[in-house]
């Protein structure tokens, strides 16, 4: 059986907030990232899967078993929180061994299992310590070990890295990727950080106001966002235009700009144009190399988000977003008002017809 989790027509009513109409399947070994604005119901969704909330209707099937009405302890689903939720009155060892004690009675076996996972996550040296004395990164590794050591059928993580600094975050990401693939764990990971999506997920779910807007592979969602809202949320340039020429190259007129695309669309169609910001090269001089699209504009805003620098440039009446790694700032210095050239290839221009 390929799919391990089957959520069908799930509705949860919490009075002030509902999640509605949730239907999706997760395949064995999938790594699903759930994204969406704050308050969109991501935490409630995964806590419902874990068994905290009783659905008003719908069903949750895990590994062929209907778990909709099972209490959390009968589901075999692991959960890792942003604030780690380590038991403060137990040592790190006892935290990790907590779930094992329910499954294994032989003490030597428990010790062996704990040591094995502790070694994989690089926390063998802190097993005797209390959680409150640990750094955030260490605490999150303990929380991960505690959840994984019992080999859950499904691992749920709610913003597991968001309380960590940038470096620790990327180190933990690697660790999670390795351990999860070694244990062949299926994961649903709620996050606000697209870096998690890029480096961990094979599928993305976009949630908004208690509903799923789009759920598909990472490529599909980022290449073909199903709505303006999704496109805007996943940080993609969205423009509207009309196709003026559709021979071997498609030309779209957006205001008084012309953009070339490789997508085939009939002449005269009204289209949405999507371009990922990191596909746009921003230069201060007109490049020698032939790009199919070179637009002239002025820098309007610069934002340093740590892993990426975002530059907004105004081209005529259109605001375009470009993203690049901070390294480039060592060579070029962008300031607001600078004249710049935005260069991108026709392959990277996605067109969607709308009526």
């Amino acid at each position: 059986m390929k799919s391990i989790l089957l959520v069908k027509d799930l509705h949860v009513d919490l009075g002030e907030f509902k999640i509605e109409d949730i239907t999706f399947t997760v395949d064995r070994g999938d790594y699903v990232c759930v994204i969406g604005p704050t308050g969109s119901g991501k935490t409630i969704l995964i806590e419902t899967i874990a068994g905290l909330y009783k659905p008003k209707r719908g069903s949750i099937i895990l590994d062929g078993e209907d778990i909709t009405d099972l209490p959390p302890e009968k589901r075999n689903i692991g959960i890792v929180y942003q604030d780690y939720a380590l038991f403060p009155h137990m040592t790190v060892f006892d935290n990790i061994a907590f779930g094992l004690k329910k499954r294994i009675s032989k003490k030597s076996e428990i010790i062996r299992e704990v040591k094995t996972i502790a070694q994989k996550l690089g926390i063998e040296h802190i097993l005797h310590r209390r959680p409150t004395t640990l750094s955030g990164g260490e605490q999150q590794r303990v929380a991960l070990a505690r959840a994984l050591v019992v080999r859950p059928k499904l691992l749920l993580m709610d913003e597991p890295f968001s309380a960590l600094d940038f470096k620790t975050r990327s180190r933990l990401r690697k660790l999670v990727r390795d351990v999860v693939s070694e244990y062949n764990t299926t994961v649903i990971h709620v996050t606000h950080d697209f870096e998690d999506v890029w480096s961990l997920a094979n599928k993305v779910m976009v949630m908004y106001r208690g509903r799923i807007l789009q759920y598909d592979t990472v490529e599909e969602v980022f290449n073909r966002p199903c709505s303006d809202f999704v496109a805007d949320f996943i940080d993609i340039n969205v423009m509207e235009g009309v196709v003026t020429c559709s021979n071997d190259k498609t030309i779209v007129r957006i205001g008084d700009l012309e953009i070339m695309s490789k997508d085939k669309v009939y002449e005269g169609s009204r289209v949405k144009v999507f371009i990922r910001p990191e596909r746009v090269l921003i230069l201060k001089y007109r490049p020698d190399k032939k790009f199919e699209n070179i637009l002239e504009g002025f820098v309007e805003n610069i934002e340093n988000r740590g892993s990426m620098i975002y530059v907004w440039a105004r081209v005529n009446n259109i605001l375009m977003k470009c993203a690049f790694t901070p390294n480039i700032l060592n060579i070029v210095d962008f300031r607001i008002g600078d004249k710049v050239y935005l260069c991108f290839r026709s392959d990277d221009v996605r067109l969607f017809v709308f009526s």
Partner: protein
Amino acid sequence: MQIGFKHLCIMIAIVIALILFSSFLCLIVLPSPKEIIESLRSSEMMFSLKLTLISALISTILVMIVGTPAAYALARFSFPGKKIIMTILDLPIAMPEVVLGLALLLLFGKTPLGTFLKYLGIRVVFTKIGVVVAEFFTALPYAMRTLYSTFETISARYELVARSLGYGAFETFMKITLPMARSGIIAALVIAFARSVGTFGTVLILAGGTYMVTETLPVTLYLNMSYGNLGMAITSGLLLLGVSFITIYMVERLGGRT
């Protein structure tokens, strides 16, 4: 101006503390030691002390047994009527003790409940059981307030994590929630005991404050005051003061750690 106002506030705090402290000092310094030792050895004082400690102990245990799950329910779950229940349980804190005592007296006296208990051979009114019942209802709201806020500060996430690891609701409560609530539970325990020991009005009305029968320390103080027996009154006052000091000390010693 700022400095002047600051100093004025500090002065008020110091003066009021001094007045209060002087009154405690009077209790310790004014009576003669001989009088106190005599009072301590009187059979009335021995009886009163014993009854106070035993009844307070029983009432504290009952308060914790009832209050812990009830406070947990109020802190963790939402259910119809929760607001009203919380208000009712809080009411005795704002209510004069004598009124609470009177209400309990009527409940256990004339109603079907009272008759039923009498039929079972349990007499509450004007008995030692009445002492425990009076202390229980006086102390319960205070303990529950502490327990409620303790449970409320413990995130339900810990419980969900424990349950996702295979532990049932009751096991999770015993293994995770209770140990995490340790300091709050100790604080509630001490408060319940202190309230039980010091209850006067409720005990007086419900249990009657009868000489050497339902006589707890506060009642001893009151009875001897009205006979003009100052030595006995001061001695029971000192014993009660001692309990208060030990209480505060215990809260700071045991309750401070998490």
